[in-house]
């Protein structure tokens, strides 16, 4: 008898995990929304201090990386191994550039005395402290997810290379892809909330 893989079960398990992630980030967004409601002026002033260029560039990078991952899944199904590997390399490169941007962005902010518990924030209006507190927590947690996602994509890349992930056996790649897309999904909401508030 050939061993059977339970495709639905594999996917369902991953989705159940993703739901907990949605609620995790959802909770943080609710916190943001309530404080935005209470300290609207301070939040708008805070958002003006963030560099839109970083926000836009990182949005484009993540969208392109999601495309790469989706394309690599299609490629594995079609047994186009080369395209699959190229897609995964592309997505990994996007993730790395994203993190470098984040590093530069955070670095600038910290240089200007904007970091949790900094004197500048403690002396400013209460809402600014909350805005940047949420900024660091949410983008930081998101950054950790990027690192985990890149690790998962890296593992998939090796397994595709070793022919352990194939058109018949691609559940791992699909689930790693789902995780990566969720990270993109969260950024789609982070971007307007932190960078585009006017």
């Amino acid at each position, binding site marked *: 008898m050939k061993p059977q893989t339970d495709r639905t079960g594999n996917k369902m398990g991953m989705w159940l995990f993703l739901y907990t992630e949605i609620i995790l980030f959802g909770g943080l967004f609710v916190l943001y929304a309530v404080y935005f409601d209470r300290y609207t002026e301070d939040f708008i002033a805070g958002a003006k201090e963030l560099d839109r260029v970083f926000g836009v560039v990182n949005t484009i990078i993540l969208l392109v990386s999601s495309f790469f991952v*989706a394309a690599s899944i299609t490629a594995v199904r079609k047994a186009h191994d080369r395209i699959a590997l190229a897609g995964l390399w592309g997505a990994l490169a996007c993730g790395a550039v994203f993190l470098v941007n984040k590093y530069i962005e955070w670095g600038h902010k910290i240089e200007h005395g904007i970091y949790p518990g900094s004197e500048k924030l403690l002396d400013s209006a209460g809402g600014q402290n909350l805005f940047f507190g949420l900024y660091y927590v949410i983008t930081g947690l998101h950054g950790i997810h990027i690192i985990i996602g890149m690790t998962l994509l890296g593992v998939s890349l090796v397994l595709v290379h070793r022919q352990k992930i194939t058109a018949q056996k691609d559940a791992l790649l699909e689930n790693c892809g789902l995780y990566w897309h969720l990270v993109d999904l969260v950024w789609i909401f982070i971007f307007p909330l932190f960078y585009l508030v006017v």
Partner: protein
Amino acid sequence: MEHQSCIFEYRTLGLVLAALLIMTAVTVGASYIDLGWVNIWIALMIASIKAGLVLVVFMHLKFEGRAVILSFLSTVFFLAVMIGFIFWDVGFR
């Protein structure tokens, strides 16, 4: 399972990426027009449409069975309940 047919062509994926990038441009453009509180709702609406595209196409929700679709919608529903009740509480304090 005949999952072989359940894939998106590269072309479709590319078109979705193009749509996502265009919507990003639109949301950035819209943020320069001052409409007061309407701005945030426009931004969130565009973000939701983008999220929908990622979910349906990139995350293959289109091909999923009832279990995943219903459980996903329940999660969104519970998120909405959480947000709704918290604002209800905060709003009437």
